[in-house]
């Protein structure tokens, strides 16, 4: 597809890629400035609460902040595998 487009003289538009990369990067960086490591703090506390009850892969817990003009969106994304194990911590209590 890319090659076909190139044949007809046009190159795949790169601006959408730039825009998406920036949005992802800045949502991380914004957490750092202002409140120190707010996002990382939220991430680790959310992770510890969730893993009390279910086993989750720490790498699959994503916390991000999208800053808007009037409101910001705090987005928490936790991937839970199917047939999830209840956490041993809960099982023990």
């Amino acid at each position, binding site marked *: 597809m890319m090659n076909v487009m190139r044949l007809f003289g*046009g*190159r795949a*538009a*790169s*601006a*959408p890629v*730039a*825009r998406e*990369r*920036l*949005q992802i*990067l*800045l949502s991380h*960086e*914004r957490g750092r*400035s*202002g409140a120190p490591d707010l996002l990382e703090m939220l991430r680790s506390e959310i992770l510890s609460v969730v893993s009390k009850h279910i086993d989750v892969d720490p790498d699959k817990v994503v916390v991000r902040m999208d*800053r*808007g*003009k009037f409101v910001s969106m705090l987005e928490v994304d936790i991937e839970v595998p199917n047939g999830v194990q209840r956490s041993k911590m809960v099982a023990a209590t």
Partner: protein
Amino acid sequence: MAKVLVVTSGKGGVGKTTSTAALGAALAQMGQNVVVIDFDVGLRNLDLVMGAERRVVFDLINVVQGVAKLPQALIRDKRLENLWLLPASQTRDKDALTEEGVKRVIADLKTKFDWILCDSPAGIERGATLAMRYADEAIIVTNPEVSSVRDSDRIIGMLDSKTVRAERGERVEKHLLVTRYDAGRAARGEMLSIDDILEILATPLLGIVPESQDVLRASNVGCPVTLNAASSAPARAYTDAVRRLMGEQVEMTVPVERKGLMDRLLRRRAA
């Protein structure tokens, strides 16, 4: 009421100095009393872009350190009598500028001028933080390019936290000035569009300055583009931006080059 306006960006080479000169001259043309201050200690260039490089005797550091009085360091523009320049020093001492000293100089300038434009150095170090420290308003100069947008975001964060106004719980009014914009390339998806940039930075737009040969030509001869080529596309963009700064409602457009056939033929011969 005098207004202190910082022209900043984080990233270097996006057009802070060019924009400071062009905006300062446009404000002066509208009858305002304007002083432009170069905060780039060690790498001063505003004097060069404004064509005053051979008239610098004293500078901002001299005034801050009490070696010279403010009126001795101020250079009046040759073309506009109500436009003044306070140059930076070429000394390499980064610590020569003190917060207290800058505060005093700005307070003094506020009694004499309507607008005080602070041309910030690139980066996020002392020079940049001092340039924005006492600002009432800020112009963030951004190119439609990923690294510039990222650095602008960083600077916006600093404007909201490291300025005197921010520390008092007040707001520094922020304006985005997009420079080197190519509407054609943005339309073809080769360049971040204005909408992309505005969505990412969530800051009100002050103006769109198109990529143009007139900007380099103006700095080559040491004359703000708003004076050197007043009817050119970038000059009109800067003039519109200034009218918006002064509270006028001006429709937002990307000024385009007016090219007639004769103009094209002449330009080709000149090039």
